[in-house]
């Protein structure tokens, strides 16, 4: 399974939650599969989906799911100690780990070679870390929501992208409707 197939499968779970989605093709895929006002699409700023999600989870009570990638977590590896040491039980970091930089042409990442992001997360002090196969992502994500505990999910999947249109929505519109959805 590739990322877009996972997103299609978990879309019914994501629909009712606040989602911060990673830059590039992941946001384009989620936007095309199931655009919701509860989705915050990153149009730039590689690496910060987990940081934005944590800040949001610490600042209001609703569950927050950050959809990140292995390459983006590697870009902002300092995020994992910050997440571990400031736990928010309404926060789930879903790392779609396809071992490649998908938005830039599927160049391999170190997570697809020797580096285990789930072990890194554990070493950083994250207490609930679950590595799963692409096929089990929905089950693991639902269990994480039900657990009421901060969870880091590392979903191992195949490299590849679906061809989806670029998001042309204005960033202020994305932000404004997201904030209205948070308050609703």
């Amino acid at each position, binding site marked *: 399974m590739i990322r877009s197939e996972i997103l299609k499968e978990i879309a019914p779970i994501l629909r009712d939650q606040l989602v911060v989605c990673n830059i590039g093709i992941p946001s384009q895929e989620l936007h095309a599969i199931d655009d919701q006002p509860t989705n915050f699409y990153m149009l730039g700023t590689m690496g910060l989906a987990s940081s934005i999600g944590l800040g949001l989870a610490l600042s209001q009570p609703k569950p927050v799911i950050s959809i990140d990638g292995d390459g983006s977590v590697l870009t902002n590896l300092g995020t994992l100690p*910050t997440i571990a040491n400031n736990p928010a039980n309404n926060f789930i970091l879903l790392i779609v780990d396809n071992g490649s930089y998908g938005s830039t042409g599927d160049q391999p990442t170190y997570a697809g070679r020797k580096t285990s992001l789930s072990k890194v997360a554990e070493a950083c002090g994250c207490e609930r870390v679950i590595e799963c196969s692409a096929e089990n992502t929905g089950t693991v994500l639902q269990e994480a929501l039900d657990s009421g505990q901060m969870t880091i999910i590392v979903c191992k999947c195949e490299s590849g992208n679906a061809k989806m249109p670029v998001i042309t929505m204005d*960033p202020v519109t994305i932000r404004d409707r997201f904030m209205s959805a948070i308050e609703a």
Partner: protein
Amino acid sequence: MQEDINKRIVDDFVANDVSFVTTVPCKQLAGVIDEIDARKEIRHIPSNKEDEGMGLCAGAFMGGKRPAIIMQNTAIGVTINTLATLTQFYRMPLPMLISYRGELGEPVACQVEMAVHTKSLLAQLHIPTYHFHHRDDVEELDKILKYTFMCNKPVAILTDASFWGGY
């Protein structure tokens, strides 16, 4: 006197409802950071890098909190992409309380290398920038915070060694 200025700064934060502060430390800002830790009105989340901190602040803002970042000017370079493509692109307010290392009284030569670029980088980004040099300059902080949350922009407050009373 030093304690007074730290308390004064954090009093202004609290009076302006700033309740989420992320920090990457600097020796000059240690007293402010201690004061922030002492206030129950403020959630303090230390970050490992300044752009990470700006991500935390973006999330906190969307979650209904007024955020601020405390950092050193040497890190302006690593935050440019985040300031342009997150904070400014999505029109979010962000007071940036910055220690302005490399100014008069600086003992470490390398600090000057980023000091000479600090104001021009901020100007290139069209970030409103205020420079606290004399102790009385702190009187403007309250207005600067109100201005930041009025216009939804990142705003820089550079605080140099003369303002802090030396090293």
